[in-house]
């Protein structure tokens, strides 16, 4: 008990500072919110740390990644911050060729957050973990005063195993590689914008937020000539194309007519003066594949439920390394610039 937060009579509908103090309220949160969602998993053992077996395959490596999630609003069409937190970290592991298995989840909760909302988020995380074939094995919660966090911030770290012999890397794209995108771009960003204040438009578009573990698994089974993969999140497709161009020291040439964009994303982009190339996705990947395997990998991706809109959009070239160029839908060519700062809606 503290002066700021006296012992309560029963369960609170909202997060109070006491929920982060390690005492009775923290215990209640664990028992009523987290454990029911993660019943039957490692987390239920309530150890201070999770013990995991070492990779058994000779030459296999451990993959490790971390990400923080601060999206607002917490719930958006097609997803929520919890689903995002699982998918973001799982996908970072998968695009490196890893088979993901374990996640940690640390929550910073804002005083005043509705516990019903927290329950929804946590249940969503558990469901997404099952979808992705991963477990949250360890976690933490802290509470901060009202106004110091946007409802909830989540940090997830993830572990996976990279089988021996896989060497996907952002520096490995080679001249001649075909560029594959697994589906239409910009869905996530536009779905977030549609619920953001001041822009106020309606759409049935859903975020594409989804775990890609089974897709990358299928792709890597069918080809060992996938040189690198990335998921276009912040910065959109342009961001990852620039990453490849810069790190692999190659040029990139894509064709606007081949880049899949949903009608709704085009409409929202036109209305707000945005460019789909810079709008975030959360369930898509871009891959650089040796040309002889490109069609085969494309066919595999298209068979996957998340890959039906997949397309080959361009090539890695030798000319003008570091630059991303695009052939426009009317035939002229131009550079795709790297965005400095966020895209803002325009009137001009």
């Amino acid at each position, binding site marked *: 008990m503290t002066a700021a937060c006296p012992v309560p009579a029963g369960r609170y509908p909202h997060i109070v500072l006491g929920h982060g103090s390690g005492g009775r309220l923290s215990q209640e949160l664990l028992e009523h919110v987290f454990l029911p969602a993660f019943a039957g998993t490692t987390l239920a053992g309530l150890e201070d740390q999770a013990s995991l077996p070492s990779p058994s395959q000779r030459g296999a490596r451990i993959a490790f990644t971390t990400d923080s999630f601060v999206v607002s609003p917490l719930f958006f069409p097609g997803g929520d911050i919890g689903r995002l937190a699982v998918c973001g970290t799982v996908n970072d592991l998968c695009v490196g060729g890893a088979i993901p298995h374990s996640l940690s989840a640390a929550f910073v909760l804002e005083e005043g957050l509705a516990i019903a909302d927290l329950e929804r988020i946590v249940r969503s995380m558990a469901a997404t973990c099952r979808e992705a074939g991963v477990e949250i094995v360890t976690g933490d919660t802290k509470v901060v005063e009202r106004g110091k966090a946007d409802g909830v911030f989540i940090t997830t770290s993830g572990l996976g195993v990279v089988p021996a012999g896989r060497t996907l890397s952002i520096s490995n794209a080679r001249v001649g590689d075909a560029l594959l995108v697994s589906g239409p771009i910009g869905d996530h960003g*536009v779905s977030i914008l*549609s619920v953001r204040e001041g822009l*106020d*438009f*309606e*759409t*049935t*578009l859903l975020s594409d937020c989804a775990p890609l573990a089974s897709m990358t698994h299928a792709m890597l089974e069918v080809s060992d000539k996938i040189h690198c993969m990335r998921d276009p999140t912040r910065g959109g497709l342009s961001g990852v194309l620039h990453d490849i161009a810069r790190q692999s020291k190659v040029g990139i040439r894509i064709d606007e007519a081949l880049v899949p964009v*949903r*009608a*709704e994303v*085009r*409409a*929202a982009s*036109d*209305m707000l*003066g945005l460019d789909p190339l810079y709008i975030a996705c959360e369930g898509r990947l871009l891959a650089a594949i040796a040309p002889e395997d490109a069609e085969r990998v494309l066919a595999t991706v298209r068979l996957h439920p998340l890959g039906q809109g997949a397309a080959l959009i361009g090539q890695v070239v030798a000319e003008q390394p570091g630059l991303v160029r695009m052939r426009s839908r009317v035939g002229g060519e131009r550079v795709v610039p790297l965005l400095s700062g966020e895209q803002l809606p*325009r*009137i*001009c």
Partner: protein
Amino acid sequence: MCLGVPGRVLSREQEDGLLMGRVDFGGVSRKVCLEHVQDVALGDYVLVHVGFALSLIDAQEARKIFELLRELDQLGELQPERDP
């Protein structure tokens, strides 16, 4: 200058003394002020700038580009016969 986007009028209603309506931009819709296109009917297309309809889009004029495409197609079909 002047991002104007065409959209289809889905509804029209008076709101606080202004004519407003829901306009569909191809999967994305928004409330738009129709005050200066009073003649607009449901299903018409308007040109929208900053949430405001600037003018009605003339459907017949808008179709001309498809007519041009058809003409080009027909010319294209005739071309091979003309080659020596």
